[in-house]
């Protein structure tokens, strides 16, 4: 993760602080750095045992790179990174992370939200929650599609 990669898709857990610090090294003196990290929650009365994330290898990397390019074209950014895991995740483990750097904080914030909104509905990941009652695919939210309309 310290090698300047901007799209990272991996099964292994990651250290969000280490990713942020490695990203900051690539930002070329930008004044504003924003990060978002999604974490597996203890939902449903704390009975979430695991999350399993399926993805579409090949399409995933292309979709994430396209979303990142879109952000670089729309906002004045110095750098942008997307990291997303797949496979088996335990509660409280980090799922994914985006980071943006810009001369102005409004660009860094807007770009991070843009990356998240598009990633939710346009990158081929599917989450399944494993609880004591069984396994269930997470349903997409109508909100997720609606969130794209603001951009």
């Amino acid at each position, binding site marked *: 993760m310290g090698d300047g990669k901007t799209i990272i898709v991996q099964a292994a857990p990651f250290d969000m602080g280490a990713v942020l610090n490695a990203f900051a090294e690539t930002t070329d003196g930008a004044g504003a750095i924003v990060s978002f990290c*999604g974490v597996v929650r203890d939902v449903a009365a704390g009975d979430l045992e695991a999350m399993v*994330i*399926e993805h579409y290898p090949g*399409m995933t990397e292309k979709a994430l790179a396209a979303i990142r390019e879109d952000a670089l074209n729309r906002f004045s950014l110095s750098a942008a990174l997307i990291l997303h895991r797949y496979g088996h995740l335990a509660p409280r483990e980090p799922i994914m992370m985006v980071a943006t750097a810009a001369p102005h904080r409004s660009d860094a914030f807007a770009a991070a939200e843009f990356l*998240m909104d598009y990633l*939710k*509905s346009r990158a081929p990941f599917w989450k399944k929650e494993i609880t004591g009652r069984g396994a269930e695919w*997470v349903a997409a939210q109508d909100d997720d599609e609606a969130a794209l309309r603001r951009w």
Partner: protein
Amino acid sequence: MMLELRYFAWLRERLGTEREAVETDAATIGELVAELRAKSDRHAHVFADMSAIRAAVDQELVAMDAAIGGAREVAFFPPMTGG
């Protein structure tokens, strides 16, 4: 033409396979889906409600009326839930 089909998430589970090769003359995703529905009861059931299904042609997300001429790989899956 020969097409490689890919299935993900609950489509994969309910069809019992993550990929299958089909010989088809379908010009669009919609025509391909009509052919698949006729293939087996299981396919008919999975592809009954297309509002719950998305498609990609050669790893690009497309609309249901998208052309598939020359495509190598078509994928079907539910709305994405990453992030």
